[in-house]
Protein backbone atom coordinates (compact mmCIF):
# COMPACT_ATOMS: atom_id res chain seq x y z
CA UNK A 1 0.00 0.00 0.00
CA UNK A 2 1.51 3.40 -0.97
CA UNK A 3 2.34 5.92 1.72
CA UNK A 4 -0.27 8.66 1.87
CA UNK A 5 2.17 11.59 1.83
CA UNK A 6 4.49 10.24 -0.86
CA UNK A 7 3.14 11.86 -4.05
CA UNK A 8 5.50 9.91 -6.31
CA UNK A 9 4.14 6.53 -5.28
CA UNK A 10 0.41 7.34 -5.45
CA UNK A 11 -1.55 6.17 -8.51
CA UNK A 12 -2.44 8.86 -11.13
CA UNK A 13 -5.64 10.71 -10.32
CA UNK A 14 -5.23 10.08 -6.60
CA UNK A 15 -2.82 12.88 -5.84
CA UNK A 16 0.33 11.65 -7.63
CA UNK A 17 2.76 14.05 -9.31
CA UNK A 18 1.76 14.42 -12.98
CA UNK A 19 4.79 13.74 -15.18
CA UNK A 20 3.28 12.96 -18.61
CA UNK A 21 0.92 14.74 -20.98
CA UNK A 22 -1.29 11.68 -21.20
CA UNK A 23 -1.77 11.69 -17.42
CA UNK A 24 -2.63 15.39 -17.50
CA UNK A 25 -5.20 14.88 -20.27
CA UNK A 26 -6.80 11.99 -18.40
CA UNK A 27 -7.09 14.21 -15.32
CA UNK A 28 -8.79 17.07 -17.22
CA UNK A 29 -12.48 16.71 -16.41
CA UNK A 30 -13.47 20.40 -16.45
CA UNK A 31 -15.13 19.97 -13.09
CA UNK A 32 -14.24 23.49 -11.92
CA UNK A 33 -17.27 25.80 -11.61
CA UNK A 34 -17.25 28.41 -14.38
CA UNK A 35 -18.89 31.23 -12.41
CA UNK A 36 -15.83 32.12 -10.27
CA UNK A 37 -13.73 32.12 -13.47
CA UNK A 38 -16.01 34.41 -15.48
CA UNK A 39 -16.63 36.74 -12.54
CA UNK A 40 -12.99 37.79 -12.74
CA UNK A 41 -13.46 38.83 -16.38
CA UNK A 42 -16.52 40.94 -15.51
CA UNK A 43 -14.73 42.64 -12.63
CA UNK A 44 -11.47 43.19 -14.46
CA UNK A 45 -13.02 44.40 -17.71
CA UNK A 46 -15.44 46.81 -16.01
CA UNK A 47 -12.79 48.25 -13.70
CA UNK A 48 -10.29 48.57 -16.58
CA UNK A 49 -12.86 50.30 -18.82
CA UNK A 50 -13.49 52.80 -16.02
CA UNK A 51 -9.75 53.34 -15.56
CA UNK A 52 -9.14 53.90 -19.29
CA UNK A 53 -12.06 56.34 -19.57
CA UNK A 54 -10.83 58.21 -16.50
CA UNK A 55 -7.30 58.44 -17.95
CA UNK A 56 -8.68 59.56 -21.32
CA UNK A 57 -10.70 62.26 -19.57
CA UNK A 58 -7.85 63.47 -17.37
CA UNK A 59 -5.12 63.49 -20.03
CA UNK A 60 -7.27 64.10 -23.11
CA UNK A 61 -6.02 61.02 -25.00
CA UNK A 62 -8.78 59.82 -27.36
CA UNK A 63 -7.16 56.43 -28.02
CA UNK A 64 -7.51 55.54 -24.33
CA UNK A 65 -11.22 56.42 -24.53
CA UNK A 66 -11.70 54.10 -27.51
CA UNK A 67 -10.06 51.28 -25.54
CA UNK A 68 -12.41 52.06 -22.64
CA UNK A 69 -15.45 51.65 -24.90
CA UNK A 70 -14.39 48.33 -26.41
CA UNK A 71 -13.45 46.90 -23.00
CA UNK A 72 -16.83 47.94 -21.60
CA UNK A 73 -18.59 46.30 -24.57
CA UNK A 74 -16.65 43.09 -23.81
CA UNK A 75 -17.65 43.38 -20.12
CA UNK A 76 -21.36 43.54 -21.06
CA UNK A 77 -21.06 40.43 -23.26
CA UNK A 78 -19.05 38.44 -20.69
CA UNK A 79 -21.48 39.35 -17.91
CA UNK A 80 -24.32 37.55 -19.70
CA UNK A 81 -22.29 34.34 -19.35
CA UNK A 82 -21.31 35.26 -15.77
CA UNK A 83 -24.96 35.52 -14.73
CA UNK A 84 -25.93 32.32 -16.57
CA UNK A 85 -23.12 30.34 -14.88
CA UNK A 86 -24.04 31.93 -11.55
CA UNK A 87 -27.54 30.52 -11.83
CA UNK A 88 -26.05 27.14 -12.82
CA UNK A 89 -23.77 27.24 -9.76
CA UNK A 90 -26.78 27.88 -7.54
CA UNK A 91 -28.61 24.89 -9.03
CA UNK A 92 -26.01 22.49 -7.59
CA UNK A 93 -25.42 24.25 -4.29
CA UNK A 94 -27.29 22.86 -1.29
CA UNK A 95 -27.46 25.68 1.29
CA UNK A 96 -29.61 25.38 4.35
CA UNK A 97 -31.41 28.43 5.77
CA UNK A 98 -29.09 30.71 7.71
CA UNK A 99 -26.35 33.28 7.34
CA UNK A 100 -24.88 31.92 4.10
CA UNK A 101 -28.29 31.72 2.42
CA UNK A 102 -28.99 35.35 3.34
CA UNK A 103 -25.71 36.37 1.67
CA UNK A 104 -26.66 34.23 -1.33
CA UNK A 105 -30.11 35.81 -1.68
CA UNK A 106 -28.69 39.34 -1.75
CA UNK A 107 -25.99 38.18 -4.20
CA UNK A 108 -28.69 36.73 -6.47
CA UNK A 109 -30.80 39.90 -6.37
CA UNK A 110 -27.85 42.20 -6.95
CA UNK A 111 -26.53 40.27 -9.97
CA UNK A 112 -29.23 41.27 -12.51
CA UNK A 113 -29.38 44.77 -10.99
CA UNK A 114 -25.64 45.21 -11.61
CA UNK A 115 -26.09 43.83 -15.12
CA UNK A 116 -28.88 46.35 -15.79
CA UNK A 117 -26.62 49.19 -14.66
CA UNK A 118 -23.79 47.83 -16.82
CA UNK A 119 -26.07 47.65 -19.87
CA UNK A 120 -27.26 51.21 -19.23
CA UNK A 121 -23.72 52.65 -18.99
CA UNK A 122 -22.74 50.45 -21.96
CA UNK A 123 -25.46 52.02 -24.13
CA UNK A 124 -24.47 55.49 -22.88
CA UNK A 125 -20.79 54.81 -23.66
CA UNK A 126 -21.72 53.42 -27.08
CA UNK A 127 -23.64 56.59 -27.89
CA UNK A 128 -20.64 58.73 -26.88
CA UNK A 129 -18.28 56.56 -28.95
CA UNK A 130 -20.57 56.72 -31.97
CA UNK A 131 -20.88 60.49 -31.72
CA UNK A 132 -17.09 60.78 -31.41
CA UNK A 133 -17.53 62.59 -28.07
CA UNK A 134 -15.32 62.36 -25.02
CA UNK A 135 -16.69 61.01 -21.77
CA UNK A 136 -18.15 63.52 -19.34
CA UNK A 137 -18.00 63.91 -15.56
CA UNK A 138 -21.59 62.63 -15.44
CA UNK A 139 -20.62 59.45 -17.23
CA UNK A 140 -17.59 58.91 -14.99
CA UNK A 141 -19.73 59.47 -11.88
CA UNK A 142 -22.25 56.90 -13.14
CA UNK A 143 -19.42 54.49 -13.91
CA UNK A 144 -18.04 54.99 -10.38
CA UNK A 145 -21.50 54.08 -9.02
CA UNK A 146 -21.59 50.93 -11.16
CA UNK A 147 -18.10 49.99 -9.96
CA UNK A 148 -19.23 50.40 -6.33
CA UNK A 149 -22.23 48.10 -6.90
CA UNK A 150 -19.84 45.63 -8.56
CA UNK A 151 -17.53 45.80 -5.54
CA UNK A 152 -20.45 45.05 -3.19
CA UNK A 153 -21.51 42.15 -5.41
CA UNK A 154 -17.93 40.83 -5.55
CA UNK A 155 -17.62 41.10 -1.77
CA UNK A 156 -20.79 39.03 -1.29
CA UNK A 157 -19.51 36.42 -3.73
CA UNK A 158 -16.14 36.33 -1.98
CA UNK A 159 -17.80 35.81 1.39
CA UNK A 160 -19.87 32.96 -0.06
CA UNK A 161 -16.75 31.17 -1.27
CA UNK A 162 -14.11 31.98 1.36
CA UNK A 163 -16.28 32.15 4.49
CA UNK A 164 -18.98 29.61 3.67
CA UNK A 165 -17.15 27.41 1.16
CA UNK A 166 -19.79 27.67 -1.59
CA UNK A 167 -18.80 25.32 -4.43
CA UNK A 168 -15.42 24.73 -2.75
CA UNK A 169 -16.11 22.73 0.38
CA UNK A 170 -15.83 18.98 -0.26
CA UNK A 171 -15.24 19.66 -3.98
CA UNK A 172 -11.44 19.91 -4.15
CA UNK A 173 -8.71 17.33 -4.03
CA UNK A 174 -6.43 17.42 -1.06
CA UNK A 175 -2.88 18.57 -1.60
CA UNK A 176 -0.18 15.94 -1.20
CA UNK A 177 1.02 15.98 2.41
CA UNK A 178 -2.29 17.36 3.70
CA UNK A 179 -2.86 14.67 6.33
CA UNK A 180 -6.21 13.82 7.82
CA UNK A 181 -6.24 13.70 11.63
CA UNK A 182 -5.28 10.29 12.99
CA UNK A 183 -8.46 8.36 13.77
CA UNK A 184 -8.99 8.05 17.53
CA UNK A 185 -10.08 4.89 19.29
CA UNK A 186 -13.50 4.92 21.00
CA UNK A 187 -11.82 5.02 24.40
CA UNK A 188 -9.78 8.05 23.38
CA UNK A 189 -12.90 9.72 21.90
CA UNK A 190 -14.81 9.22 25.16
CA UNK A 191 -11.91 10.58 27.18
CA UNK A 192 -11.69 13.67 24.93
CA UNK A 193 -15.46 14.26 25.23
CA UNK A 194 -15.28 14.03 29.04
CA UNK A 195 -12.35 16.42 29.09
CA UNK A 196 -14.18 19.04 26.98
CA UNK A 197 -17.34 18.61 29.09
CA UNK A 198 -15.32 19.26 32.26
CA UNK A 199 -13.82 22.38 30.68
CA UNK A 200 -17.20 23.77 29.67
Amino acid sequence: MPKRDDAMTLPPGRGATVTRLGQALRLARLTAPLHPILVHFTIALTATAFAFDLLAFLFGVDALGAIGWWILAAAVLVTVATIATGVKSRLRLPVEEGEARSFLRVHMALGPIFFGLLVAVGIWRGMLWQAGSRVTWWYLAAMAGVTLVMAAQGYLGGELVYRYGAEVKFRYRKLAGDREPFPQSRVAQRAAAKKSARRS
Partner: protein
Amino acid sequence: MPDASFIGLGPFQWIALLVALVTLLVVADAWAGHYRRGFIRRAQYAPFLSGGLLVIFAVAATIAPRTRWIEVALRAAGWLAIAAGLVGFCFHHYYGIVRKPGGYKWLLNSLMYGAPPLAPLALTAMGVFALIAEKGLAGAPGIAGLPLRTSLLATIVVSLFGAILQAGILHFRGAFNNPLMYAPLTIPVFTALVGVWMMAEPSPVALIALVALFWLTLLTGFVGLGMHLRGFDRQMAGLYVPLFNWLQGPPAFAPALFVGLAAIGLVTTGLL
Protein backbone atom coordinates in the same frame (compact mmCIF):
# COMPACT_ATOMS: atom_id res chain seq x y z
CA MET B 1 -35.12 52.91 -43.64
CA PRO B 2 -33.88 55.88 -41.53
CA ASP B 3 -30.16 56.66 -41.65
CA ALA B 4 -29.71 56.87 -37.88
CA SER B 5 -28.08 53.79 -36.42
CA PHE B 6 -26.49 52.55 -33.23
CA ILE B 7 -23.43 50.26 -33.35
CA GLY B 8 -24.13 49.35 -36.95
CA LEU B 9 -27.82 48.49 -36.60
CA GLY B 10 -30.71 50.69 -37.74
CA PRO B 11 -33.71 51.43 -35.47
CA PHE B 12 -35.97 48.75 -36.94
CA GLN B 13 -33.20 46.15 -36.78
CA TRP B 14 -32.86 46.97 -33.07
CA ILE B 15 -36.62 46.70 -32.63
CA ALA B 16 -36.66 43.32 -34.41
CA LEU B 17 -33.79 42.12 -32.19
CA LEU B 18 -35.56 43.30 -29.03
CA VAL B 19 -38.79 41.62 -30.20
CA ALA B 20 -36.86 38.34 -30.59
CA LEU B 21 -35.29 38.60 -27.11
CA VAL B 22 -38.49 39.57 -25.29
CA THR B 23 -40.54 36.94 -27.14
CA LEU B 24 -38.02 34.29 -26.08
CA LEU B 25 -38.52 35.28 -22.43
CA VAL B 26 -42.32 35.56 -22.76
CA VAL B 27 -42.39 32.05 -24.24
CA ALA B 28 -40.16 30.73 -21.43
CA ASP B 29 -42.62 32.05 -18.83
CA ALA B 30 -45.54 30.61 -20.83
CA TRP B 31 -43.78 27.24 -20.79
CA ALA B 32 -43.51 27.33 -16.98
CA GLY B 33 -47.20 28.22 -16.60
CA HIS B 34 -48.47 25.68 -19.12
CA TYR B 35 -46.16 22.92 -17.83
CA ARG B 36 -47.52 23.58 -14.32
CA ARG B 37 -51.01 22.86 -15.69
CA GLY B 38 -49.71 19.75 -17.42
CA PHE B 39 -50.43 20.92 -21.01
CA ILE B 40 -53.99 19.64 -20.62
CA ARG B 41 -55.06 21.35 -23.88
CA ARG B 42 -53.31 21.29 -27.23
CA ALA B 43 -53.88 25.04 -27.54
CA GLN B 44 -51.35 25.45 -24.74
CA TYR B 45 -48.62 24.66 -27.29
CA ALA B 46 -49.68 27.61 -29.49
CA PRO B 47 -47.38 30.27 -27.95
CA PHE B 48 -44.32 28.11 -28.63
CA LEU B 49 -45.17 27.68 -32.30
CA SER B 50 -46.10 31.32 -32.92
CA GLY B 51 -43.43 32.71 -30.56
CA GLY B 52 -40.76 30.42 -32.02
CA LEU B 53 -41.50 31.56 -35.57
CA LEU B 54 -41.49 35.18 -34.43
CA VAL B 55 -38.07 34.76 -32.78
CA ILE B 56 -36.60 33.08 -35.88
CA PHE B 57 -37.83 35.67 -38.37
CA ALA B 58 -37.14 38.66 -36.11
CA VAL B 59 -33.52 37.51 -35.78
CA ALA B 60 -33.39 36.91 -39.55
CA ALA B 61 -34.73 40.44 -40.18
CA THR B 62 -32.02 41.84 -37.88
CA ILE B 63 -29.26 39.99 -39.70
CA ALA B 64 -30.57 40.47 -43.25
CA PRO B 65 -32.81 43.54 -43.48
CA ARG B 66 -34.48 44.44 -46.78
CA THR B 67 -34.72 40.78 -47.80
CA ARG B 68 -38.14 40.40 -49.35
CA TRP B 69 -39.01 36.88 -48.21
CA ILE B 70 -37.85 37.56 -44.65
CA GLU B 71 -40.06 40.66 -44.50
CA VAL B 72 -43.06 38.61 -45.67
CA ALA B 73 -42.24 35.86 -43.17
CA LEU B 74 -41.84 38.41 -40.34
CA ARG B 75 -45.20 39.94 -41.21
CA ALA B 76 -46.86 36.50 -41.20
CA ALA B 77 -45.16 35.59 -37.89
CA GLY B 78 -46.28 38.93 -36.45
CA TRP B 79 -49.92 38.31 -37.38
CA LEU B 80 -49.69 34.74 -36.04
CA ALA B 81 -48.34 36.03 -32.72
CA ILE B 82 -51.13 38.63 -32.53
CA ALA B 83 -53.75 35.94 -33.17
CA ALA B 84 -52.14 33.47 -30.72
CA GLY B 85 -52.01 36.16 -28.03
CA LEU B 86 -55.65 37.16 -28.51
CA VAL B 87 -56.85 33.54 -28.52
CA GLY B 88 -54.70 32.93 -25.43
CA PHE B 89 -56.30 35.93 -23.73
CA CYS B 90 -59.78 34.46 -24.42
CA PHE B 91 -58.66 31.02 -23.17
CA HIS B 92 -57.13 32.48 -20.01
CA HIS B 93 -60.32 34.46 -19.41
CA TYR B 94 -62.64 31.51 -20.02
CA TYR B 95 -60.70 28.79 -18.19
CA GLY B 96 -59.15 31.11 -15.62
CA ILE B 97 -62.27 33.05 -14.60
CA VAL B 98 -65.54 31.96 -16.22
CA ARG B 99 -65.10 28.21 -15.68
CA LYS B 100 -63.66 28.57 -12.17
CA PRO B 101 -65.97 27.87 -9.21
CA GLY B 102 -67.85 31.08 -8.47
CA GLY B 103 -67.14 32.58 -11.90
CA TYR B 104 -67.29 36.36 -11.95
CA LYS B 105 -68.51 36.45 -8.33
CA TRP B 106 -65.02 35.39 -7.28
CA LEU B 107 -63.34 37.61 -9.83
CA LEU B 108 -60.49 38.87 -7.65
CA ASN B 109 -59.63 35.36 -6.52
CA SER B 110 -59.64 34.07 -10.10
CA LEU B 111 -57.59 37.01 -11.34
CA MET B 112 -54.95 36.23 -8.73
CA TYR B 113 -54.93 32.43 -8.72
CA GLY B 114 -56.22 31.52 -12.19
CA ALA B 115 -54.25 31.76 -15.43
CA PRO B 116 -52.68 35.26 -15.61
CA PRO B 117 -55.38 37.06 -17.66
CA LEU B 118 -53.17 39.58 -19.48
CA ALA B 119 -50.02 37.47 -19.95
CA PRO B 120 -50.89 36.23 -23.51
CA LEU B 121 -51.25 39.83 -24.67
CA ALA B 122 -47.46 40.20 -24.27
CA LEU B 123 -47.18 37.95 -27.33
CA THR B 124 -49.75 40.10 -29.14
CA ALA B 125 -47.73 43.21 -28.33
CA MET B 126 -44.56 41.58 -29.71
CA GLY B 127 -46.51 40.69 -32.86
CA VAL B 128 -47.53 44.34 -33.29
CA PHE B 129 -43.91 45.48 -32.79
CA ALA B 130 -42.84 42.91 -35.42
CA LEU B 131 -45.38 44.32 -37.90
CA ILE B 132 -44.14 47.87 -37.28
CA ALA B 133 -40.51 46.75 -37.60
CA GLU B 134 -41.35 45.00 -40.87
CA LYS B 135 -42.96 48.19 -42.24
CA GLY B 136 -39.97 50.23 -41.12
CA LEU B 137 -37.47 47.82 -42.68
CA ALA B 138 -39.46 47.96 -45.93
CA GLY B 139 -39.19 51.75 -45.88
CA ALA B 140 -42.91 52.48 -45.36
CA PRO B 141 -43.62 55.86 -43.68
CA GLY B 142 -46.44 54.57 -41.48
CA ILE B 143 -48.79 51.78 -40.53
CA ALA B 144 -52.61 51.91 -40.41
CA GLY B 145 -52.55 55.64 -41.14
CA LEU B 146 -50.19 56.44 -38.23
CA PRO B 147 -46.52 57.45 -38.51
CA LEU B 148 -44.25 54.62 -37.35
CA ARG B 149 -42.89 56.62 -34.40
CA THR B 150 -46.41 57.36 -33.11
CA SER B 151 -47.57 53.78 -33.63
CA LEU B 152 -44.51 52.52 -31.71
CA LEU B 153 -45.14 54.92 -28.83
CA ALA B 154 -48.84 53.96 -28.75
CA THR B 155 -47.99 50.24 -28.63
CA ILE B 156 -45.43 50.85 -25.87
CA VAL B 157 -47.94 52.84 -23.79
CA VAL B 158 -50.74 50.25 -24.15
CA SER B 159 -48.32 47.39 -23.41
CA LEU B 160 -46.94 49.21 -20.37
CA PHE B 161 -50.44 49.68 -18.95
CA GLY B 162 -51.13 45.96 -19.48
CA ALA B 163 -47.84 44.93 -17.85
CA ILE B 164 -48.47 47.27 -14.91
CA LEU B 165 -51.97 45.87 -14.41
CA GLN B 166 -50.80 42.24 -14.52
CA ALA B 167 -47.87 42.97 -12.18
CA GLY B 168 -50.26 44.83 -9.85
CA ILE B 169 -52.59 41.81 -9.61
CA LEU B 170 -49.77 39.35 -8.93
CA HIS B 171 -47.93 41.61 -6.49
CA PHE B 172 -51.24 42.14 -4.67
CA ARG B 173 -51.47 38.35 -4.43
CA GLY B 174 -47.96 38.43 -2.97
CA ALA B 175 -49.25 40.98 -0.41
CA PHE B 176 -46.50 43.43 -1.47
CA ASN B 177 -44.26 41.56 0.97
CA ASN B 178 -41.27 43.62 -0.16
CA PRO B 179 -41.40 47.41 -0.72
CA LEU B 180 -39.75 46.91 -4.13
CA MET B 181 -42.94 45.15 -5.25
CA TYR B 182 -44.46 48.61 -5.59
CA ALA B 183 -41.83 49.51 -8.22
CA PRO B 184 -43.85 48.44 -11.31
CA LEU B 185 -46.73 50.59 -10.06
CA THR B 186 -44.61 53.73 -9.87
CA ILE B 187 -42.03 54.56 -12.57
CA PRO B 188 -43.68 52.63 -15.47
CA VAL B 189 -46.99 54.39 -14.73
CA PHE B 190 -45.32 57.79 -15.12
CA THR B 191 -43.58 56.52 -18.27
CA ALA B 192 -46.90 55.49 -19.82
CA LEU B 193 -48.55 58.79 -18.87
CA VAL B 194 -45.69 60.87 -20.26
CA GLY B 195 -45.85 58.67 -23.38
CA VAL B 196 -49.49 59.71 -23.81
CA TRP B 197 -48.45 63.35 -23.30
CA MET B 198 -45.71 62.95 -25.91
CA MET B 199 -48.18 61.54 -28.44
CA ALA B 200 -50.82 64.17 -27.74
CA GLU B 201 -48.56 67.22 -27.65
CA PRO B 202 -44.94 66.54 -28.62
CA SER B 203 -42.49 69.00 -27.06
CA PRO B 204 -38.79 69.01 -26.07
CA VAL B 205 -39.73 68.92 -22.36
CA ALA B 206 -41.99 65.90 -22.85
CA LEU B 207 -39.23 64.18 -24.86
CA ILE B 208 -36.59 64.74 -22.16
CA ALA B 209 -38.98 63.48 -19.46
CA LEU B 210 -39.94 60.45 -21.56
CA VAL B 211 -36.31 59.49 -22.28
CA ALA B 212 -35.40 59.81 -18.57
CA LEU B 213 -38.41 57.69 -17.61
CA PHE B 214 -37.58 55.05 -20.22
CA TRP B 215 -34.10 54.75 -18.66
CA LEU B 216 -35.63 54.39 -15.19
CA THR B 217 -38.15 51.82 -16.46
CA LEU B 218 -35.27 49.85 -18.01
CA LEU B 219 -33.49 49.78 -14.65
CA THR B 220 -36.75 48.93 -12.84
CA GLY B 221 -37.05 45.87 -15.07
CA PHE B 222 -33.56 44.70 -14.15
CA VAL B 223 -34.32 45.27 -10.45
CA GLY B 224 -37.43 43.13 -10.97
CA LEU B 225 -35.38 40.36 -12.59
CA GLY B 226 -33.02 40.35 -9.60
CA MET B 227 -35.84 40.38 -7.09
CA HIS B 228 -37.68 37.56 -8.88
CA LEU B 229 -34.46 35.52 -8.83
CA ARG B 230 -34.24 36.25 -5.10
CA GLY B 231 -37.92 35.26 -4.87
CA PHE B 232 -37.04 31.72 -5.98
CA ASP B 233 -34.58 31.52 -3.14
CA ARG B 234 -37.17 32.53 -0.60
CA GLN B 235 -38.91 29.23 -1.34
CA MET B 236 -37.89 26.06 0.48
CA ALA B 237 -34.46 24.90 -0.84
CA GLY B 238 -34.39 27.74 -3.38
CA LEU B 239 -32.93 27.02 -6.78
CA TYR B 240 -31.36 23.79 -5.51
CA VAL B 241 -34.82 22.39 -6.29
CA PRO B 242 -35.04 24.30 -9.57
CA LEU B 243 -38.04 23.00 -11.49
CA PHE B 244 -40.43 23.01 -8.54
CA ASN B 245 -39.45 26.48 -7.41
CA TRP B 246 -39.44 27.85 -10.98
CA LEU B 247 -43.04 26.67 -11.33
CA GLN B 248 -44.16 27.85 -7.91
CA GLY B 249 -42.10 31.03 -7.54
CA PRO B 250 -42.59 34.41 -9.21
CA PRO B 251 -42.65 34.37 -13.04
CA ALA B 252 -38.92 34.35 -13.78
CA PHE B 253 -38.72 36.63 -16.79
CA ALA B 254 -41.88 38.75 -16.43
CA PRO B 255 -39.96 41.93 -15.42
CA ALA B 256 -37.98 41.63 -18.67
CA LEU B 257 -41.10 42.94 -20.42
CA PHE B 258 -40.46 46.32 -18.78
CA VAL B 259 -36.83 46.18 -19.92
CA GLY B 260 -37.88 45.32 -23.46
CA LEU B 261 -40.58 47.99 -23.70
CA ALA B 262 -38.25 50.64 -22.27
CA ALA B 263 -35.50 49.60 -24.70
CA ILE B 264 -37.91 49.86 -27.66
CA GLY B 265 -38.94 53.26 -26.30
CA LEU B 266 -35.31 54.40 -26.18
CA VAL B 267 -34.79 53.23 -29.77
CA THR B 268 -37.95 55.10 -30.81
CA THR B 269 -37.00 58.33 -29.09
CA GLY B 270 -33.30 58.15 -29.90
CA LEU B 271 -33.13 56.85 -33.45
CA LEU B 272 -36.47 57.71 -35.08
